[in-house]
Each structure stands twice: as structure tokens, then as C-alpha cells.
């Protein structure tokens, strides 16, 4: 397999992603730890090893933390991660990237260290799960499993905003890598005017994200002496997540960021440069960042595993339809915040449950909790934490005002999540 330096690949991706999406042409030139299964459609993609096979769909925080934890609990098992992207990108850093605080190379990692642990990384796209017969249909062929974990994250539902799917170049946001590349470029060339960010109804990935982006943009524009009228058009009745609503309201007010709650954007009119809400209000823009509704991958619904998200028991992450299928993270219907931190913990937790199902002698996992540090500027962050009990009932929540210390904590927090996977 041709090997390519990740830095040069990223440079190439950054240059080629003006259209905002990955293209298959570059997917064949990636780190050596990944396997290609582009041939043999509808045939078995991986020969049976005779071992118990755990297939993990999605190589984000939750999937990889499960893979890594399970490789410790069940070293005799074959662990296969199916991931469509050529390298790992840390979700929380999309915000840092669009605000110019980090480079692509800072926020991504090769899958090589994961492969080095004996975990197979297979690059392909999931098409369907045949739960009754224990196999997954992928673009590159079928993959059989004994246990299946679905951790494919969220899908950006552009089709839920009228005209957006036909006019993708009108929009950019920080919820996907390609879109983030496009958004950063557009921010760098923004000369001033009306900047509109729209927020979908909860739940969505990284709930504080839209407000963080607005605050960081205010800082950038002020520093560059660019006159910008920033407006957040929010489908929710208050800023998200709920525990931070009052903090955000005060912050947005202080930064003179207009806030329009209870206003769900249902249409974009690119020629008229306006977005239209469900109440019929029209909001003009010079730069728009629509965050479309966040849903799970369509194969989940098509495979009868849930609609929109995978139906699971929040205590064990086990599917309500199949005893050997589990789901965690943003694609699962669980009460936990859709954040990188809870995804990582859910990944570790479900590894316990899968190992227990395999008959391994492991203890029950700890309950899930969340902590994160949303930016209010590049040097200050808020803090929010939530604890749930083992059944997913929220038992404690805390929030604190913006502090410089929390911005430092954020860096440590995210680095810890990444290093826990790739450097440990």
C-alpha cells in the first residue's frame, strides 16, 4: 500500500476540501495501519479468524475507546473497527480550527497506533446491518460479527432545511471537517456585515458549540476591526445545554451577540441572502452558518434499529432489538450529552458490558458523567458538569462562570481524551 505522510495528506485535504467533503480518490492513500476492502462487494470482506469477533462501526471517540478497552479485557477476541474516514479528527477541535486556534495537523491522528494494538481498522462505509444473521453490509463487502457496536456519531441532515441540499456552497459550519475547512476560509476572507449562525433543536452534537463559535468570532472580528453584526437564530427556547442557559444568556448579551430563541430555520434563500424560520421570519445575512438537524446514519433506521437514533437500554447500551448489538455516543438514544467526553466514557463502559456478555471476569462499569469547558473567548471558558446514575438518571449538575483557568482545563481535557487513545 502506498504510504503517505499524514501532514502532507492533511495539507492536500485542506487544499482539496473547498467543496466541503471527502472524496474517495484520496481514501486509498492513507496510513499503513488501515486495510482496504474496496473490492469484493457483497462478499465477505474479512475472512473468519475463528476468534470471537467484535465489529465496531465508527472510529470516533466512543468506538475507539471501546476497542482499546475491550482489547485489554478480551485479548483473545478479534476487534474490527469500520471507519469511512482516513484519519481520526477530534470533534471538539473543529471549533478551535474554524476560529484559527489550531491547525488540521493539531486536531487529527493517524489510526496507526490503534492498529499497532492488534485492532483491525477497515476503511469502508456502512450500508446495512442484518441483525438476524449477524453481519454488516459495507461498501466493501460483508463483515460477520459475534458482537456489534454502533458508534457512527451524527449525520448532518442538510435535507431538513429547504434548498440547502441543492445549495451546499451557501453554507458552512463547524460540525464536520470538510465544512470546517470551508468555514475557516470564509471567515478569513469575511469583510464585515451580518453574520448569522443557526442552531437546530436539541439534541445535537456539542451543545455549547454554536454559542462558542459566535463568541470566538466576536473576538476575531473585534481584533481585526471588522464590523460584524452577529446573530444566533436558535430553534430552542434557550441556549444549550440547559444547565448553561443562564450563563450563555449573560455572555451573549455582554458580547452584543443578538439572540433569537424559538426560531427554527426551515429554509435558506441564497439568492435573497436570507434564512426563513418556521414562524415565517426572514433573517438577512452576509455570511450564514446553518447547523442542520443532527440525526443518526440512515442505515440505523433502514436496519430497524431505531428512528432517528439507535434504541438502547441506557444502562447497558444494548439494543432493544438484538442481544448482541450495542450502540453508544451520538448515534444512540441515551440521556447523556452528545459530547466527546461522554462518548469516550460510553465507549469504555460498553466495553465492560460486551466483555461481560462474552463471559469475561470484569467489574461493572462506573456511571457516565460529563464535564466540558465551552469557550467564551480564546482565553476564557465556562465549566459545566453533569452526573448520571447507572440507569441514566441525572443526579447532579454544576455550572460555573467563565475563567481563564477553564480555558487551560479545556486544553488538558481534550489532550487527555486524545492521548488516552493514541499515546498511551
Amino acid at each position, binding site marked *: 500500500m502506498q504510504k503517505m505522510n499524514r501532514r502532507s495528506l492533511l495539507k492536500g485535504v485542506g487544499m482539496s476540501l473547498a467543496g466541503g467533503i471527502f472524496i474517495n480518490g484520496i481514501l486509498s492513500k492513507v496510513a499503513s495501519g488501515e486495510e482496504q476492502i474496496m473490492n469484493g462487494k457483497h462478499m465477505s470482506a474479512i475472512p473468519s479468524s475463528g476468534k470471537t469477533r467484535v465489529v465496531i462501526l465508527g472510529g470516533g471517540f466512543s468506538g475507539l475507546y471501546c476497542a482499546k478497552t475491550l482489547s485489554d479485557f478480551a485479548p483473545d477476541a478479534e476487534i474490527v473497527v469500520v471507519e469511512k474516514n482516513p484519519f481520526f479528527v477530534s470533534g471538539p477541535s473543529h471549533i478551535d480550527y474554524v476560529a484559527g486556534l489550531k491547525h488540521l495537523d493539531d486536531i487529527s491522528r493517524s489510526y496507526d497506533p490503534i492498529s499497532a494494538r492488534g485492532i483491525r481498522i477497515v476503511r469502508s462505509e456502512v450500508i446495512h446491518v442484518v441483525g438476524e444473521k449477524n453481519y454488516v453490509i459495507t461498501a466493501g463487502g460483508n463483515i460477520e460479527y459475534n458482537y456489534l457496536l454502533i458508534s457512527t456519531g451524527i449525520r448532518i441532515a442538510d435535507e431538513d*432545511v429547504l434548498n440547502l441540499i441543492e445549495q451546499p456552497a451557501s453554507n458552512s459550519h463547524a460540525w464536520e471537517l470538510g465544512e470546517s475547512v470551508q468555514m475557516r476560509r470564509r471567515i478569513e476572507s469575511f469583510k464585515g456585515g451580518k453574520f448569522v449562525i443557526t442552531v437546530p433543536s436539541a439534541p445535537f452534537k456539542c451543545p455549547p458549540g454554536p454559542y462558542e463559535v459566535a463568541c470566538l468570532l466576536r473576538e476575531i472580528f473585534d481584533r481585526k476591526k471588522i464590523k460584524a453584526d452577529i446573530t444566533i437564530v436558535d430553534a430552542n427556547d434557550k441556549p444549550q445545554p440547559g444547565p448553561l442557559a443562564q450563563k450563555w*444568556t449573560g455572555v451573549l448579551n455582554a458580547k452584543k451577540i443578538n*439572540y433569537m430563541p424559538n426560531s427554527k430555520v*426551515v429554509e435558506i434563500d441564497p439568492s435573497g441572502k436570507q434564512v426563513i424560520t418556521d414562524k415565517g421570519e426572514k433573517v438577512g445575512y452576509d455570511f450564514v452558518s446553518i447547523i442542520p438537524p443532527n440525526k443518526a446514519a440512515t442505515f440505523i433506521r433502514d436496519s430497524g434499529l431505531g428512528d432517528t*437514533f439507535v434504541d438502547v437500554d441506557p444502562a447497558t447500551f444494548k439494543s432493544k432489538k438484538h442481544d448482541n448489538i450495542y450502540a453508544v455516543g451520538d448515534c444512540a438514544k441515551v440521556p447523556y450529552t452528545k459530547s466527546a467526553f461522554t462518548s469516550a466514557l460510553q465507549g469504555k463502559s460498553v466495553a465492560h458490558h460486551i466483555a461481560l456478555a462474552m463471559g469475561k471476569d470484569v467489574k461493572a462499569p462506573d456511571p457516565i458523567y460529563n464535564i466540558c469547558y465551552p469557550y467564551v473567548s480564546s482565553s476564557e471558558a465556562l465549566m459545566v458538569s453533569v452526573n448520571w446514575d447507572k440507569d441514566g438518571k441525572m443526579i447532579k449538575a454544576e455550572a460555573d462562570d467563565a475563567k481563564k483557568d477553564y480555558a487551560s482545563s479545556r486544553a488538558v481535557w481534550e489532550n487527555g481524551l486524545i492521548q488516552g487513545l493514541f499515546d498511551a
Partner: protein
Amino acid sequence: MLSSVEPGSTQDNNLTPPLEKKIEAKKGIVAFIELSSPTPSDVYLLYPTQYNKYKESGSLEGVLEFKEITWLFYPIPALLEDQTVYIITKGEVKLNITYENIQERLDRLFAGEEQLRAGTEMSIDSGISMVRLTPLIPGLKVRLDFTENAQFVIVKTIDLARYKKGLKSFDQLYKEYDLKGSSDHFNFSISDFEDLYMLVRTDKRIRLKYLIWATKESAESGC
């Protein structure tokens, strides 16, 4: 001004227009406001920054509004900090506030109790009207009661946009969707996080009352 009180207690107030009322809920408490009016009234709920803007400019842009209502039941949760809201009404209303401990409510939900989460009774003009049923989460139960038979269909956001744009008609949507009827009541459960809107067609002015009930499943959905 009403001061926040202990969970389980209630307060009654008769309010005459123009009305502004400040309601405060202490941390850990949810204040359920219940408004009733003999004639259709407009009610607005404002958070402090919205209220300040309203006092400065008179603008009610973006605030939570309930048009032409005769009854409203709505929660004001104060999860982590004391929460203040202001109610503004344009019409004569009776206000009742009930305070409950959030954690106790959650415990009862997880134990299987079904709890009224929100409700509204409103007027609907003849013709076709739109009612926003959001925010909805899986596991919620919804009951609709009309004072007369009406034809209604409950659609997703994208089809609301298509309807407003003239790209789809009421009759077309009525054929396409399952949540629909021609009667004076309807019960359904929410299965996913999709925002929903109801289109109602009636040949006379009627009233609609809708009630949303929380369940253990909705509590597990996390919002």
C-alpha cells in the same frame, strides 16, 4: 413580585391587563405556571435579558409566545441556578403557580409515573392553521382535543416549509402522513426527536387543547 416558595406549594393571582409578572424559581425547583382566561389572550414568557430588551425597545422578538390562548400549563425549571421569568399578558388571566422539586419529579418519572409536562388551549381560525408542537422528545404522550370535528395532519419541519412555500398542499400531506385524522380528539406518542407541526383545517373558529405527558421513556431520552 412573587417570591419563590417551597416545593408543593401553590400561589393564585388574578391578573388584569396590561400585566407583567415576575416569577422566580429557586435552584432545584421547577415552577409550573398555569394561566387561564375566559377569553382568548396572548401570553409571552420572557427571560431576564429578553425582558430588559422589551423594556428598552418594546420588542417581543424571539420570546416564547402563546397566541389566543384560554389555558396554558408550562414548566420553568431552575436546574442549576435560580431562574427568573417574566410573564406578559394581553388579556385578563388567572395565574396559578405550583412549585416542585426537580429531582423528586425525576425520581417519580423513573419509577413509572406519567406527568403532565405542558399544555395549551387555543383558538383556531377557520381555514388552515399551523400549530407548533415542539419541542418533542421520544416517549412523550400527546393528547389533542378539538371543540368540534376538525381535519388535521401532523408533519415534519421540512414539509411544513414545503407547505408554506406552496410546494405541497394540505391534501397531499394528509395522504403522505400517518399522524392525521378528522375528529374531535387524537392521541399519539412521540417516537423520535423530530420536530412536529400540526396543520388544522376547519370551516369555523374552534378551540384546541393539547396536553403533553412525560413518561419514564422520555426521561431516558435526556432532554
